[in-house]
């Protein structure tokens, strides 16, 4: 277990370098790989050949749940469970229920966006093999990285390292799991 390989980690100096490198890794046909950048680099999704995020659907479902649930709660409590005349208004005075309906829709939508994002990203994940690398600490400062995992069918220790150096990496290291 101790010496099981996680993969290769290649360092790049600029957004331009990682952008070009990502296109080459994508075209080389790797599947289990990723790039790590201090900020979202424009166009990197395309350079990595990634699909669109599913998050908007999660948020839509959550927001509708919140809004419908909120409207239902107000209707049920005011019409069915404890009908009570207030200010001479009808039991089902739906216009008065709109503000709370809207607010709950927003609340559930926002919760869906945050927790949906964390769920899709499988975060929190406090430990990750990449954190073994001392150099990797600079991903959050000014360095750019590409990691290719050992489980990728195309991964070959020597060839992948050579490939990463060839596409412009200034430093390639192997990371244990």
């Amino acid at each position, binding site marked *: 277990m101790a010496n099981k390989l996680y993969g290769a980690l290649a360092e790049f*100096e*600029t*957004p*331009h370098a*990682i*952008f070009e490198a*990502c296109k080459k890794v994508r075209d080389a046909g790797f599947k289990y790989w*990723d*790039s*790590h*950048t*201090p*900020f*979202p*680099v*424009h*166009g*990197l*999704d395309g350079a990595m050949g*990634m699909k669109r*995020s599913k*998050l908007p659907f999660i948020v839509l479902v959550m*927001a509708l749940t919140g809004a419908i649930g909120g409207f239902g709660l*107000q209707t049920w*409590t*005011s019409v069915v469970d*404890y009908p*009570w005349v*207030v200010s001479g*208004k009808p039991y089902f*005075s739906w216009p*008065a229920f709109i*503000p*709370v309906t*809207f*607010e*709950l829709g*927003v*609340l559930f*939508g*926002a919760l869906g*966006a945050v927790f*949906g*994002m*964390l769920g899709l*990203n499988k*975060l*929190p*994940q*406090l430990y*990750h093999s990449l*954190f073994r690398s001392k150099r*990797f*600490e*600079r*991903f*959050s*400062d*000014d360095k750019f990285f590409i990691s290719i995992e050992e489980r990728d069918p195309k991964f070959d220790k020597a060839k992948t390292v050579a490939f990463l150096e060839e596409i*412009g990496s200034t430093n390639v290291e192997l990371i244990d799991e």
Partner: protein
Amino acid sequence: MVQSVEQIERVDRRVPLVLGGKSFHEVTEAIAAPIEGRTPKLWWIIFSAAVTLLGILVASTGYLFYEGTGIWGLNNPAGWGWAIVNFVFWVGIGHAGTLISAILFLFRQKWRTSINRFAEAMTLFAVACALLFPTIHVGRVWLLYYVFPIPNQMQMWPQFRSPLLWDVFAVTIYGTVSLLFWYVGLIPDLATMRDRAKSALGRMLYGFFSLGWRGSNRHWQHYEVAYLILAGLATPLVLSVHSIVSFDFATSVIPGWHTTIFPPYFVAGAIFSGFGMVLTLMIIARWAFKLEHIMTMRHLENMAKITLLTGTMVGYAYGIEFFIAWYSGNQFEQFTFISRMFGPYSWAYWTMVSCNVFIPQLLWFRKIRTNVKVLFVISIFVNIGMWFERFVIVATSLTRDFLPSSWAYYSPTIWDVAALVGSFGLFFTLFLLFLRFLPMIAVAEIKGVLPQANPHHGHTPHAEESHAGATPAPAEAKE
């Protein structure tokens, strides 16, 4: 392909967002410095003052819980006093943060990146202060759970037709969504702090709250979508919150309150007051932490322009209120407005008009917009004026309504003052802790708007080194 910042800058002929051609690493260093350096003496001085005020808040609230709302200056017609004034004041201030982070984000106003974290934090703490006041104003705080739709011993549900209940939902949800928005923005920056932390405790805490962020582009993708959606949700939310706050007044039949102009008027006023407070805090922070190259004069000037715009909108609303009072032919409405100008609270009214309408007109002049000291003074006047606006609305209408026999004069007691002053203690304590322990500027976002962040910048493998030469010289550098 989306235009690069550099191209946009060139089109606008504006100065760069970050001055001095900083590299990514220099940006990290500049933003991390206030957290990693020694605590400045000035911080301790302001912090101890803030904690003292917080102590006043705790003591006065404790006495309030013991004795009841009778310790305040509330009387029979004026059932809403400073507590509600303070509530609207703080919740209004809380609107600037979300405006800057969400609305300016959707409009692609990239200058917001230097100040959004800061303004969001301010929002959060202002909303915390705001929530405090209705909470303690209910008198029997231990029965506060009646406002939530949970089964209680009376077997009754909250009254969903009441704007006061809408308020409970609007403000608590606004606080929650602001917290989420702020925290999501913080995650990558907490990872930066984690990777730089020297102490074990710092590593652990920043590590825990950064959730194991590793800058993965597969994560950034969902992250950016989440951020965009949160901005999209927060934009109607921020407009709805102060509209709902204004419903507290507008849906009642009190003269001076029962007007349809209230929602947009309150929203404009909220943005106005919030920008005033952001300016106040920003001018102090950029000076104290030497961040003038990131929070540039251009940021201050843009803020000043929005302050001028919203201040003028507020002034317009004051005028329209008068016009409609006259035009409606309703004698109670007319009387209320005449009495605002010339009645027992005319001193408050003219303070409000001077601070909110007259003084901000100075911001038409560029010389004033770019003079930090004058801008600071104007921002203080805005803060004062907007507090008085809420006071004028609450006090003048309640103390002189339909029946002269029920008129009275409302004045606060020492405990009202203690609660207001104490709430500033709560606000500044939280804000100073934020400045000391969290990155007050969004590190990752700032890097994203630097010219060399564009992968097509310079088209050379060493774009970072050569970027100073490639960037067009700023057409009109102001600092």
